[in-house]
């Protein structure tokens, strides 16, 4: 597993995978988890082009998406796809999603399959 993977949590008691991290398993209340990467292909659940940008962002707009991966795990991230629609197939990758001064924050970027 890559050192900068975005990690979901697999409950050691019931096997349910949750993302983001919870302190108690949303399915069974279990307290122990194994990390498992948020990875693979999936489909766009929804997306938006954000023009009123957050602090730290300077492009014309930021394309954000909610994606359901084939594993069943859903995640929010940046969408690097020119012609998205609900249902578009994408693949989860890890890249620089935000620069805070000198600090580069890495996270999920969904790209065309």
């Amino acid at each position: 597993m890559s050192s900068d993977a975005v990690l979901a949590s697999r409950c050691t008691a019931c096997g349910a995978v949750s993302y983001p991290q919870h302190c108690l398993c949303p399915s069974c209340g279990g307290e122990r988890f194994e990390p498992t990467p948020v990875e693979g292909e999936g489909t766009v659940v929804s997306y938006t082009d954000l023009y009123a940008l957050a602090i730290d962002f300077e492009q014309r707009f930021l394309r954000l998406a909610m994606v359901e991966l084939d594993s069943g795990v859903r995640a929010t991230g940046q969408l690097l796809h020119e012609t998205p629609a609900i249902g578009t197939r994408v693949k989860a990758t890890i890249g620089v999603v935000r620069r805070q001064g000198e600090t580069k924050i890495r996270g999920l970027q969904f790209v065309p399959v």
Partner: protein
Amino acid sequence: MRRVMVVGAGMTRFGRSSETLSQLMCLSSMAALRDAHLGEYPVDGVVVANMGAARINRQTAIASALVDRLNLFPATAETVENGPASGSSAFKVGYQAVAAGMADVVLVTGVEKMRAVNNLEGTDFVASMSHPEAEYIYGVTLPSLAGMFARMVMERYGVTRRHLALVAIKNHANALRNPYAHIQQAITLEGILEAPEAIVNNPPIAEPLHLFDCCPVSDGAASLVLAAEDVAEKLGKAGIVVAGIGQATDTHAVHERPEPTRLTAVEVAAERAFTMAGTSRDEVDVVELHDAFTILEIVQSEAAGFFPQGEGHLALERGETAFDGSLPINPSGGLKARGHPVGATGMAQLVELTWQLRGDAGERQVQGARCGFACNFGGFGNNVVTTLLRREDR
């Protein structure tokens, strides 16, 4: 539990204010206290709703500051921070104190002074309630969550940008009758959607949402005085009873919701309020919903149980939610046009309902209103407080 009455109401005009945060909360509090004519009855407790003073105004413990400014010693004082649901949450805290018998009279004030910082800082302050690792770091803001939500709802139920524009047009028209509203501007379908220059007037913010789908950033304060029923009777102010309060929570990251087009916390909170009040949806005459984004008014009107799921936009289109419709929604102008000083909004909704039920709403009076419902929506729906107020003639 004791029954609790609303005995006083007041608010400042919403908008860009030159008053300080402390002065804003004093002004609305004094208006509500004057309205209550408490006479010999002291204010036993003060609850202040606020989301951002620590960050954007560099001021903390503001309920204590309000007690000091109003010389209400030795009243109890609490500040409630519950995101954009702070207002109704603070109201609930005040209600509980009176209902439980720990206080006879409580002043509840919601306040926010957002224009103290620039737009970028203000947007970031509001975005800080999104999930820090799973949403915020990607550049997620509240408008972007609303944009993704709107796209799903539009695709699933056939809601169009025209429907969204109809919400904005209705609420702007309502606000023209509200002297407390931030925005006093009539808008038309032509101007924000159909004309060639509409894209200039109404640029995209978070597609498919445009500027006129989003509430403004406001300063303002709103206050109510709550009293135990026996005190309200002695004051000659009995009449507006707190009939029901319901609250519910949902997942922090929006993508974790099994059906991301549903506002489950609104559904549960509304059901709890109606159950507590022993009232049905049919009895409601006037509604204040949390239209921080136009799509939210439509979906909340369904989730609160007034229309079937997926049909809120049809009721809107038929004019049922208009000021002169069968179920007027946001006669105040809503967040869209009254404005949205986040911590004050829930209280402003309840001030509006109080005035409507007393028959004091002036030009925007919903004739014969006896039961009012408000939905105060925190986060992107992860903490929702709904309230039912009812008029009782004595």
